[in-house]
C-alpha cells in the first residue's frame, strides 16, 4: 500500500481546491498496456480528490472497476462494480469484501437506492441482481426481462421513489416500480443502452445514450423516450451527464465524437474537442476514421466544471463547458465514474 500511495503522489495534480459543497470521487484505472497476467503495476480503484488537489486512493487495486455507488447514510459504505464482482467497503476503503460469488461476473454498473439504502442494484452481462441487505445476498430479479437480450450495461435508481429503477439493456430501456419484482420494457432498441442519467433539477427528466439509437430524452420519468437530434445514432455513445449548475446544459462523450455538449436542453449539439488530445487512428485503417477516444464525462455540481477522461491519455477539465480544456493529470488513465457526493449528508 505504501507503494501505491507513492505512485499516487506522482499522479497528483495541482488544481484549485474543491468548492465546499461536494466530495469528488472517481472510479478509475491506470491500465495502459495492461492485460491479464501482465507484470505491469497499475493503480486502480476508487480515488477521492482532496482539497489540495491530490488524489487519495481508497482501494481496492482492481484494474476493472467500472462503477461506484455510496450509501447515502454513511459515505464510508460504498460499492464498486468490477470483473470479480461487487466489492463493498464498510470503513471507507480500509477493508473490502467481494460480496458476490462465482455466479455473477463482469459487473457493468451498480446503484444504491437512496430511499431504501439497503437495496443495491447491479447490472450484469446476463441480467440484473438486487441485494436487499447491503450486499449480503444477491438474488437475481429478472421477471419481465427477456431470456436473451438482458445484457445490462447501466442501471439507475429514480431518487424520487424507492424501488423505481431504470435499466439499460441490450434490447432497450426497462423499468421497474416495485424494486425489481417485475420489469417492463419502456423503449426498445437494436443495441445496448450504455448510460442512463436523471436530471438533478427535474426528476422527471432523464437522458440516455446507446450504441444504436443515439441520445434519448424522457420528460416523464423514463416512461417514454424520444431521440435527441445532433448526436450520431450510428456510433456507440458512452455516457451522458447533466450540468447540475445549469439545467439546460448536457454533455455526452464517445470514442468517435469525443465530447459533445448542448446548452439549450438538447435542441442543438456542438463537438467540444479543441484542446483535448488529437484524434487517434481508427482501429481499422482505411475504414474507420480517427477518433477522440473520450471515455467518460462528468460535471462538478459546485462549479459547473466539465471533466472528460480521454482513455489512455489523461483527465481533462473545462471551466467553459468544453470550449477550452486543460490537462488534469492522471496520465494513462480511464475514468469510469465521476461521483460528487453532497458533503452535508456525510
Amino acid at each position, binding site marked *: 500500500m505504501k507503494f501505491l500511495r507513492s505512485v499516487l503522489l506522482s499522479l497528483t495534480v495541482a488544481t484549485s481546491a474543491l468548492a465546499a459543497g461536494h466530495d469528488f470521487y472517481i472510479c478509475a484505472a491506470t491500465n495502459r498496456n495492461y492485460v491479464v497476467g501482465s507484470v*505491469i503495476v497499475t493503480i486502480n480503484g476508487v480515488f477521492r480528490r482532496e482539497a489540495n488537489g491530490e488524489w487519495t486512493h481508497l482501494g481496492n487495486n482492481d484494474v476493472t472497476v467500472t462503477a461506484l455507488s455510496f450509501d447515502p447514510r454513511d459515505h464510508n459504505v460504498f460499492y464498486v462494480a468490477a*470483473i470479480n464482482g461487487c466489492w463493498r467497503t464498510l470503513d471507507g476503503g480500509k477493508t473490502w469484501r467481494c460480496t458476490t460469488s462465482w455466479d455473477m461476473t463482469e459487473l457493468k454498473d451498480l446503484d444504491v437506492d437512496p430511499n431504501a439504502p439497503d437495496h443495491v442494484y447491479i447490472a450484469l*452481462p446476463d441480467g440484473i441482481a438486487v441485494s436487499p441487505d447491503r450486499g449480503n445476498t444477491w438474488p437475481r430479479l429478472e421477471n419481465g426481462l427477456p431470456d436473451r437480450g438482458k445484457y445490462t450495461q447501466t442501471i439507475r435508481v429514480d431518487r424520487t421513489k424507492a424501488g423505481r429503477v431504470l435499466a439499460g439493456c441490450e434490447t432497450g430501456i426497462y423499468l421497474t416500480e416495485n424494486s425489481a419484482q417485475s420489469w417492463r420494457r419502456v423503449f426498445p432498441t437494436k443495441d445496448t443502452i450504455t448510460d442512463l442519467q436523471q436530471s438533478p433539477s427535474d426528476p422527471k427528466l432523464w437522458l440516455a445514450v446507446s450504441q444504436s439509437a443515439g441520445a434519448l430524452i424522457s420528460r416523464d420519468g423514463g416512461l417514454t423516450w424520444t431521440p435527441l437530434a445532433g448526436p450520431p445514432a450510428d456510433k456507440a455513445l458512452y455516457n451522458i451527464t447533466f450540468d447540475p449548475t445549469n439545467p439546460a446544459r448536457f454533455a455526452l462523450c464517445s470514442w468517435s465524437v469525443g465530447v459533445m455538449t448542448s446548452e439549450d436542453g438538447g435542441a442543438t449539439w456542438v463537438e467540444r474537442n479543441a484542446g483535448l488530445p488529437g484524434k487517434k487512428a481508427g482501429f481499422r485503417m482505411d475504414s474507420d476514421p480517427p477518433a477522440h477516444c473520450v471515455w467518460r464525462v462528468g460535471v462538478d455540481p459546485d462549479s459547473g466544471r466539465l471533466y472528460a477522461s480521454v482513455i489512455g491519455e489523461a483527465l481533462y477539465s473545462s471551466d467553459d463547458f468544453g470550449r477550452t480544456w486543460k490537462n488534469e493529470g492522471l496520465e494513462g488513465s480511464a475514468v469510469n465514474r465521476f461521483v460528487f457526493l453532497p458533503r452535508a449528508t456525510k
Partner: protein
Amino acid sequence: MKPFFGFLAFALFLAGSAPAQPAFSGPMPVPPPDTRGDTLRRAYLDRVHEVLVWYADTVKPEKPETIGTGQIVAKLALRQDAALVSARIVELMKQPQTGDMFWMFPWAAISYLGRDQLSPEAKAAIRDAWRTYFPLRGDTENHWAMYYSSLYLMSELYPDDPADSWFTGKSSAENRAEAKAYLIHWMDLATTIGQGEFNPTHYIGEYAIPMLYLATWSKDPEMKIRGHMMLDWLMAELADNSLNGVLRGPNARTTEASVVEHWNSLSSFFTWTMFGNTPPPASYGGFGIFFAGAAENYQVPAVIYQVAVDRSQDYVQRDLKRTRRRWRYSDQFMPPIYKTSYMHRDYSVGSYQGGVSDPIQTHVWDVMWAVPDPRGVNNTIYSLHPYASAHTLQTYFTEQPDEMISSLSGQGKPSYDVPDKVLGSSPYERVFQDRDTVIALYDIPAGTAYPRINGFFSKDLIRVTEDKSGWIFAQGGRTYLAYRPLAPYRWEHLLGYKQLPSKSGYKWERTDPGEHGDKLLVSEHLQNGTIVQAASVDEFASFEAFQAAIKALPLEFKLGPVPVVKLTTLRGTRISFTYGQAPVVNGTPLDYSKWKLFEGLYLNAEKGSRKLTITHGQLKRVLDFNTLSITDSVLP
C-alpha cells in the same frame, strides 16, 4: 477482454539465458517398446526430472533476479537450497504483486511444495500477499480454473483464517465453498455438454496444472479425485487428438505460430511429458515447470498412453463441445460445437461445423500430416475467412466496441484484424467433414471486412501442382493432398510476425520470408468454398494416380445464391452440402441433435452422462463423475 500471452515472453526470457534443454534440442524421442507400467513410470519421471533440473540450473545464487517462480518451484520440488529460496521469496513479496490468476497458481504450488522447507518468514510473506494483492478472476474459463483452484487450495492450507486475512474479504471457509462450487459447476458443464475451450494448444496448461494441483494437494477427497479425473479427461482428449504427440485442429484457442507449426505449443510439453512421443517446446512451454513441480503425483494411465501412441488403426471421433459464453447478440448462451476428427497414421483431419466458437484464436479445421520431426515444420493445410468484428467481440466480451480491435495487437494477437490472417473463425463459414474429406463453404455478406478466403499453403508442401481441372495437388510427408478452391484465386506470400522489443504490450513487424516461405491462396469472392481430400501415399501407385483418382470423383458445385457442393469422396461417401443447411450424407441429412459427448474408437460418452469411457484393446478406464469413481478393467 484481457487475454494473456505472458508465458511466451517468459519462455523467450528463459531461452535467452538458460542452459541447453536436452529434449528440446535432442533427437526425436521414441516411445519405449516396453510399455510395462514401471518402465513408463520411470521414463515419465525422467522427463519430469529433466524439467526440474533445467530450471534449477538457471539459478545463479549471486544473481537473485535469476530466481523466479519457476526456479523456486524447481528448487523446492528437488528439495534444494531452501534457505536461498526462502530469502528470495521474502524479497519478491516486498515488491508489488502482478499477474492475477497467473500469479495465484505458482504461489499456491510454492506454498504447498514449501510447507516443510520454507522459512516462517517466507511462508508469512506469501500468506500476507493473499490479503493485500487483488488478483483478477478474469473472463475466460481457463482464468477461472486457475483462480478458483488456487484459491481453493490456499484456503485449505489455511483452513480457519478470518475474512480480513484474504483479498476477497471472505473467510477461508467461504473462499473454499465458493471455489468448490464453481469448480464443480465447470466440471459438470464439461462432462455433460462439453468443454468450452476445447483442444487448446496453449491453454491446456491452464487447465491441466490446476487439476494436477487439486489431485495432489486437496485435503477434500471429493476435490482430490475430481482433480485427478479431470486431468485424466484432459489427457485422454489430448491423446486422442494428437498425432505423434502433435495436437491438431480444431482448437478453441491457439496462436498465430501454433496454427501453422502445430508442434510449437504448450500441448507438446504435455504430450512429451505424458507420452514421450514428441520433443517439448522451448523452455518447456514456459508453464511446463509448474506442472513438473507436482508431476510425480500423477501418472497417465496405460489406456490413455496407448490411445496416444498407437496409430495402427484409423479412427473417426465425434465430440460435443460448446462455444465461449455469448453475453449478447445471440439466442443461445453457449451454442454446441460439433467436432469431427479422423486419425490415420500418416495424417489427421479435424473440424467443427463452422461459425464462431471464440471470437479470437479459434481454428476451425485443418489437415495435418505426420513428419519425422515436427520442429519448425508447418505441416498443415486449411482455409478460412479472415473475419474481424467489434460486434462479434462484443458478443463475447462485455466491453465497449471501439477499443477492442485495436488493443488485440498489443495483447499478443497481432493478426486479429489483418486481411491475410491465418487464424480465426468466421460466422460466414460452414464446414462438413467425412473422414479425410473436408468441405468448407463461405457466404460472406457484401460489405464485410476482408471479402476473401485465405488458403494456407505451407512452405513444407512438396509437388504443389495447379491442375487445369481446378484441383491443386500437393504432398506433405506421406500424405497426398487435393485442394479445390471453388472460385478464382491468386497467390500471396504469407508475411510473418517479428516481435519487436517492448517494455509494455506487444509490438510487431511484418516480415516477408520470400519465395521459400508459406503462401496464401487468396480468393476474393463472397460466395466461395474449399474442398480438401487427403490420402496416404500407400493407397496409390504414384502421385499421378492419386491425381487421376481425385479428378475422377463426381463433383458438382455452384456458388449462388448460396454455395452448394455435391461430391462423392475418395471413400465413396456421397455428400450434398448446402451453405446453411444440414449436410446430406448418402441421402440422409445429418442430425446434429444425436451427437454424443464422445463417440469413437477410444473415447465414448453419452451427452449429459458425466461419464467417459476410455478403451484401447483390452484396457478400459471409466471416469464417472456421478459416483466420483475411476474404474479400470481389462477386457476379455
